[in-house]
């Protein structure tokens, strides 16, 4: 498989910290974490894979 041939470059702790401290990363994470948090809260309130028109019995079984 192609995938097994892919080599993921490994970063050392210094390189990781430099990235975490960068403006590019902070900008990315500030925006992206909000999207994920909204998605998580949405997930908590409604599960689109659950059929709410079913009786409680059916729902428990599925």
């Amino acid at each position, binding site marked *: 498989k192609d995938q097994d041939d892919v080599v993921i*470059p490994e*970063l050392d702790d210094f390189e990781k910290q430099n990235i975490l401290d960068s403006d590019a990363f902070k900008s990315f*994470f*500030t925006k992206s974490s909000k999207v*994920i948090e909204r998605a998580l809260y949405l*997930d908590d309130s409604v599960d689109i*894979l659950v059929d709410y028109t079913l009786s409680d019995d059916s729902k428990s079984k599925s």
Partner: protein
Amino acid sequence: MSEIEESFKRIQTHKGVVGVLIINRNGSVIKSTFDQETSVSYSKMVIDIFPKADQLLKINSDNDELSFFRVRSKDNDIMITPDKDFFLLVVNKIHKE
């Protein structure tokens, strides 16, 4: 604790969240709550899937950048937000109230 750290912790400790992974566009792990092997497994899959998911979106709309990716099974939810440099991946266990 920085605002970044606080956001990371909030996501990490959200009910049902199994793990959080941040990688760059080369797939290198920048930060992760998963073990090394799992992190690399996710990373390889993400950098393999994303160009294809981007192509999927571009079939019907040329200039539109992929902003959110999600796959659901009955019990699991994997969400990924990208930008030009990074990917944030969160694995959530679906909990039934």
